[in-house]
């Protein structure tokens, strides 16, 4: 009998989510620890920065990945295993740029490290091998002239 927690998005929609899935988010986990979970109460956690379409995608990712080992802390020596994106994630993130950035922002806000890392890698893959002009075209950025980095180290 797993507990259900209710998440309310910026457009007012309420999602019923397993606590196990919801606590993949560091933000929700901290909130629950601080506020405490009462069995009888129906807790509604409000997420004003996340729209319902994006929360749907985020929940889909966390449901699939909820049994993953948590990403290692920075200070532990670990086996640097493949830093490739797995095929499920790759297909999952075949969305338009706007949605991708919204997912990144949501993952950052909700503190879901695994999702943040994989989405950022996706964006990095979109940047690799491109000239600055191509990058601007891809991401629709206004042009700016500036000095570039060099080999500053001795």
């Amino acid at each position, binding site marked *: 009998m797993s507990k259900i927690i209710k998440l309310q998005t910026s457009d007012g929609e309420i999602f019923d989510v397993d606590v196990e899935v919801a606590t993949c988010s560091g933000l929700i986990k901290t909130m629950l620890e601080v506020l405490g979970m009462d069995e009888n109460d129906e807790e509604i956690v409000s997420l004003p920065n996340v729209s319902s379409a994006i929360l749907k995608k985020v929940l889909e990712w966390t449901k699939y990945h909820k049994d993953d080992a948590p990403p290692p802390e*920075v*200070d532990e*020596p*670990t*086996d*640097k295993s493949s*830093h490739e994106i797995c095929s499920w994630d790759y297909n999952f993130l075949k969305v*338009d*740029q*706007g949605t991708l*950035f919204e997912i*990144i*922002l949501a993952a*950052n806000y909700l503190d879901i490290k695994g999702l*943040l*890392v994989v989405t*950022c*890698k996706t*964006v*990095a893959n979109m*940047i*690799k*091998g*491109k*000239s*600055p002009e191509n*990058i*601007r075209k891809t*991401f*629709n*950025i*206004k*042009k*700016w002239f*500036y*000095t*570039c*980095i060099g*080999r*500053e*180290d*001795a």
Partner: protein
Amino acid sequence: MDENMSKTLPDEILEIIFRSLAPYSDLRSCSLVCKQWNRVAKSTYRYGIDKLYSGLRGSALLQCTTQIHDIAPSRRSHVATCVVGDYLYAFGGSFVDDYRDYRAAFNDLWKMNLSSRKWERIIPTGQYPKPRFCANLVHHDGNLILYGGRMLHRSHSVLQGGIVLLSVPINEIHVFQMESCRWISDYRTLDIVPHISMYGVTEHKGMLVVTGGHIHSEAAIAENEHVWCYCIESGDWTKRDVEGPKPGPRRKHTQVKLDDDHLLLIGGVRIVRGTDNDGQPQNDCWMLDMSQPDWKWILMTVDRPAENSLLCSNHRGCKVGDNLVFLHPKCSMNIGGHRCGIIRVQRRRNPGLDALHLPHALEPHGIYRIPLEINNQNDRNVIRAQPDVNVNGRRGELCQDRTHTVRGVQPYPAVVRSYQFEKKEYFAYSLDLEEAIVKHTVRWRKSLPFWGDERLPVLGFSVDYGAGEIIVTGGLPLPCFQSRCDVDNRERSYFIAHKSVLS
């Protein structure tokens, strides 16, 4: 999407994205996109370098990433390498098979694009250098200068009853012009220049300064103590007699440039008069002061001497900012942390039995350590075979099939082999050079242990420094880990950087 992206993604997220990029051309392209990206790209670049420095000092964790290449130079050691801009150039090298029966030297030139981590072969025109190894490549003004090294030479030996392959040092100089992709040979003053390999060389003010090295003849050993200078413009070689105490004759030492007037030399192996074998490994550190017209060698005070006497005698050090870095496995007595058996192995005529040759620099007395068989349920890449059965003294053959377990008694003796490639702990020892020029002191520091592929080479590998990462290429792993036991035979290179750098 019509909105300006830079307004939607905050700096901290851009930094996570940039850390997934290699710190070369991709990051440079990002810094040219817009003002915000420029700011974040510069800070990411600096972050990678600073974190590597703190990793070397022992206050942060390093990690070693293995990059598997589909196209790469064939397995070889003692390659001459040089990092220029976004590329790592590699020339030549030698390959020795396990039984030392087959040996080859190369003269191909490759470059690795450090952004994409892919090797490309360069096909230059011009006068190709002879195939060689143990040489050095120095970059100067758009040219790569290749000097000396050893090449293989066929000679007839009455005692050994046939043709033998000797390695002899050479003294030719070749210059590779990067712009026009041509090799040019410099024949100008070859008659006076010594034939040396395993020397140290650095470039100072348009001049190559060469110290030490393995010189072949008895008389030439005295030459080893001099410093040779090659003026790149004019092609003149001069021998400098440096007065006062100087480092003894040595080779395989590491020489680095401190600035235009100072170079540092450390470690190496003493050359013993009259013999061709490796002498004593040495740990002393000298600096050559070239600021005055009369040059002077200064013996440096080494603070906290290195724990391992073999550290600077066989391994090449790499200059990372103000540090000179040497990589070393955590425990040189164990092989990969397995339980090790200590056995005495002799070479026998029957090739079916394993004859392990460890290079005499590491194990001169014939005691070898090999991993024992590990019975692990979760083995991957493990080849299990029955113990060697020397059936009636029949000549055996190596077990070629690596894809499934081999059971039962083979009609020919099979190889006793059971390896599981695991992670092994390494240290990065760094010599702090900050106070070298002013106070004549250097200090050893040890990093925290980091995990790396067990197959990280231990012999003849090349270490170079890219932007915020240390690159290990080439080299041969310990003989017992040679390719025939490796299901995946592709070439690898290793990148050591701070843990949080994701690429």
